């Protein structure tokens, strides 16, 4: 068999297996992300079936997956939504950072991975999965609930925080000095401000550059623009992902909606490859030693996210049940935790164990998140009834 034939067969087998896994995930009401990761662990290095020939392609495809993940995240929110979200939820957002980044950073320091490892793990445990959460809220019919805008504005804040965090991370991973790091932060702050202002004032011009009535032309232009911006951003050490994210924010209105519709399937394909590649590069044998830490992190960061949501919802005047729902909805971590860990691993600046811990953690949280969102209501109701029962018996007895 010639080389190309072998590559096609391997690639086909990978996609087909992912499709089957995705279907399985849909059947049992799970996000497909953990199953893609498991798929990646199964193939590849130290896995059951090693894949050698398609490494180059999947590597690049995975990178495109990251660019598309961030581009669509940017497309999801208009600049105006980001501004109002920032204004309304910055306190909850800050609490979110403090509560949820700290456990990851602490564990990384305990394991001796140093400040770089701490910065990476802080991001991994901080960022919720807006993809999983939006899907779960829709599936559970909670879009009309009063706590839902609270949950969404926390997610909006997290995405803005990502736009700041990723360039810092890229700079630190690149081994830039403290001063250089500050410079990177300054540059990225300035760039983000400029992009937001441009998007708010002149978003339609940016949209007009990529817009087209022809689907094919439109798709090629948007994809091309995203990869160009990502590439240049990467060359300037600002992080490819952030470039794509900012482009997504700058594109607005109906152009953004059309772009989302067109790019979604493409994103799903490439993002799936990205998760698999991440799993491929993680040796399954390295997971058991860090599994206990992953469980500890899962428990702690579930509680901290619930706390964040509870607090944010209470500030918005939501009742107890709603607060519990808001908290539980935020628990899921997923694609962006893997994006962060992936950046760190590909830069080679962190231990291989970190990838294993991030994988195990996301596996747990991507499964736990939707379950938490589902069971929170019956559990909270039962608790409420119990406490109500206790107070009643207390008052009944003279």
């Amino acid at each position, binding site marked *: 068999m010639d080389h190309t034939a072998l590559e096609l067969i391997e690639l086909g087998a990978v996609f087909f297996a992912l499709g089957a896994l995705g279907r399985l995930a849909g059947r049992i009401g799970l996000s497909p992300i953990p199953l893609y990761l498991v798929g990646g662990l199964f193939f590849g290095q130290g896995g059951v079936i090693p894949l050698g020939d398609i490494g180059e392609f999947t590597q690049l495809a995975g990178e495109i997956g990251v660019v598309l993940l961030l581009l669509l995240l940017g497309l*999801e*929110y208009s600049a105006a*939504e*980001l501004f*109002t*979200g920032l204004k309304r939820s910055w306190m909850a957002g800050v609490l979110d950072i403090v509560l949820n980044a700290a456990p990851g950073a602490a564990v990384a320091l305990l394991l001796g991975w140093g400040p770089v490892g701490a910065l990476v793990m802080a991001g991994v445990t901080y960022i919720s999965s*807006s993809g999983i959460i*939006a899907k779960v*809220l*829709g599936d559970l*019919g*909670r*879009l*009309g*609930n*009063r*706590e*839902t*805008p609270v949950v*969404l*504005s926390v*997610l*909006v804040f997290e995405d803005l925080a990502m736009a700041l965090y990723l360039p810092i991370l890229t700079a630190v991973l690149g081994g830039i000095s403290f001063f250089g790091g500050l410079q990177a932060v300054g540059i990225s702050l300035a760039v983000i401000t400029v992009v937001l202002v441009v998007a708010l004032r002149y978003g339609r011009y940016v949209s007009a550059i990529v817009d087209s009535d022809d689907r094919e032309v439109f798709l090629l232009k948007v994809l091309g623009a995203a990869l160009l911006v990502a590439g240049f951003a990467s060359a300037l050490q600002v992080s490819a992902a952030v470039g794509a994210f900012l482009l997504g924010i700058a594109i607005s209105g109906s152009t953004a*909606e059309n772009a*989302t*519709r067109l790019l979604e399937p493409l994103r799903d394909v490439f993002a799936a490859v990205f998760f698999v590649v991440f799993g491929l590069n993680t040796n399954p044998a390295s997971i058991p030693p860090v599994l206990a830490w992953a469980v500890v992190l899962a428990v702690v960061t579930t509680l901290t996210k619930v706390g964040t949501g509870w607090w944010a919802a209470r500030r918005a005047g*939501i*009742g107890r*049940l*709603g607060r519990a*729902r808001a908290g539980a909805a935020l628990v899921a971590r997923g694609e962006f935790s893997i994006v962060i860990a992936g950046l760190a691993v590909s830069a080679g600046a962190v231990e291989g164990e970190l990838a294993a811990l991030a994988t195990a953690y996301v596996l747990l949280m991507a499964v736990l998140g939707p379950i938490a969102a589902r069971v929170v*209501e019956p559990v909270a109701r039962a608790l409420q009834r119990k406490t109500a029962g206790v107070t009643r018996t207390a008052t009944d007895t003279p």
Partner: protein
Amino acid sequence: MGYVNVEVTPLPGIGVRKDFAIGNGRRVGVVTQRDGKIELIVSKSDDPDACLASLPLTAEEAGALANLLGAPQLVAQLTEEHRELPGINTKQLPIKTGSPFDGRTLGDTAIRTRTGVSVVAVMRAGQIHPSPTPDFTFTAGDLLVAVGTAEGLEAAFKILKHG
């Protein structure tokens, strides 16, 4: 008419929620998603933050529901206005799926010539189109608000149904 305070809440990344509190304190409204999906929402009585129902509706279904809710009010208003004129009735006449006039114009029905009934408004997707001209094209789901004698309205109903 009472004043209804509709609250508009943006749902970043999803769409917009528009709802209002009804007399007994519960919320009723719709969530319009970016891709055009519409959900009818009704809040729970014991947990006002949550939704008892969150029903996905197609654009046609939402329009039909809007007509059901809006048309009686319009008819009541017109009836009220015609109260001093005995023998004049106001009635809603539907263009059902399969009606011969689905896709044809008001002029094609020749209702005015054949029955003496006037179509004063058409309700479509919750919107009122007042005083439709003869070239107004009907589609299934439209509700015609017609004024005429009882017999005339009966005849008009049959024409719209069977042609």
